[in-house]
């Protein structure tokens, strides 16, 4: 924020008419926000921001711009919690311009000052918008992360046999996570067989197949064997049409088939009791 004489003059005007501006501003904000939050609380919030704005404009103390930003971020957050849209919040900041303009309408000599002031208020309004977007993005990133965690369980089917049921689309990031979790489980459990069940994977293209192959190869390096199960008829069709080769990797139609296969390979037999 540039501090110059026009801002100092403007700050003086704000200070002189503080009560008038504040009353008008609160009125506009309350009218537009259709009665959200108490009039008193809104008045306090706005008075706080106006005071900080004035201090920032006079350049009297160094911390004022930072405090102003923090106050605006807080305003944006509390409004968002109450369910206001970011435009609502930005509009209530912009309303300050109207309140000040009413005072200066008849003072032609103050026009440059008012323009500079108006630019500053615009910046502040945009800042509330930005805070809102940042907060939103943080939420989305957190959710994506927890979804990744949720969607990759590794379950133990039998002594030495683990299963990884995959649900949802496989991309590189997920494959990486699945691979790591599965390999760790193989080592921790001392398991020699893993079943990757793709019943819940909607489509298998060359990329997904590539990821699956990599996982199987990594498991083989550890000394464990993988079976891929849950291949639906359409998927079998796609895989063949795309010319994907699973090579010597065992594939089974259902998880049950894969379990039976793994049991047989470990030399176990399930029979009638």
């Amino acid at each position, binding site marked *: 924020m540039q501090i110059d004489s026009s801002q100092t003059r403007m700050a003086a005007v704000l200070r002189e008419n503080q009560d008038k501006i504040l009353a008008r501003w609160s009125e506009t904000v309350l009218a537009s926000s259709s009665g959200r939050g108490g009039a008193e609380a809104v008045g306090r919030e706005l008075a706080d921001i106006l005071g900080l704005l004035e201090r920032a404009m006079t350049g009297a103390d160094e911390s004022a711009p930072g405090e102003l930003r923090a106050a605006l971020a807080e305003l944006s957050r509390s409004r968002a919690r109450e369910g206001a849209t970011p435009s609502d919040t930005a509009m209530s900041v912009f309303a300050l311009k109207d309140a000040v303009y009413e005072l200066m309408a008849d003072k032609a000599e103050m026009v440059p000052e008012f323009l500079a002031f108006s630019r500053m208020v615009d910046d502040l309004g945009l800042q509330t918008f930005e805070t809102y977007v940042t907060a939103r993005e943080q939420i989305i990133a957190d959710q994506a992360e927890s979804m990744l965690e949720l969607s990759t369980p590794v379950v133990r089917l039998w002594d030495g046999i683990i299963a990884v049921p995959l649900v949802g689309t496989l991309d590189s990031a997920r494959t990486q996570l699945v691979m*790591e979790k599965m390999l760790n489980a193989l080592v921790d459990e001392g398991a020699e067989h893993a079943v990757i069940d793709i019943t819940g994977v909607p489509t298998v293209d060359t990329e997904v197949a590539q990821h699956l192959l990599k996982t199987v190869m990594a498991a083989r*390096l550890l000394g*464990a064997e993988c079976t891929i199960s849950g291949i639906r008829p359409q998927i079998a069709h796609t895989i063949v049409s795309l010319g994907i080769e699973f090579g010597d990797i065992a594939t089974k139609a259902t998880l049950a088939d894969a379990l039976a296969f793994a049991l047989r390979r470990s030399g176990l037999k399930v029979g009638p009791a």
Partner: protein
Amino acid sequence: MDRVPILRIGDNLFVSIQVDLQDDTVLQLQEDLAEELSGTGARGVIIDITAVEIVDSFIGRMLTTIGSISRMFDAETVLVGMRPAVAITLTELGLSLRGVRTALNAEKGLRLLAARDG
């Protein structure tokens, strides 16, 4: 220079890699192993890499080479105790270690070799 010891257990040779693998350590190991194999007529080689945390393509290739050398003496190589991170790295490097068998731990590796001898 660190030298990797080669132990003889019955019909098998046991190599446990406990040091950071430098290129010349690896070359020395290959020579020692060939020497040992020809001297003892061992039927199997177990390489324990539980302590190895970092691998590169050179080490990946060295493991395949050891497998090929052992084959010359009619011995089978089993790589045991690979860490998940190492397996992922090797896969990303496109190395599938052909000609080398793998097992989760030394015990399973020994069982694998015993099963081959019948």
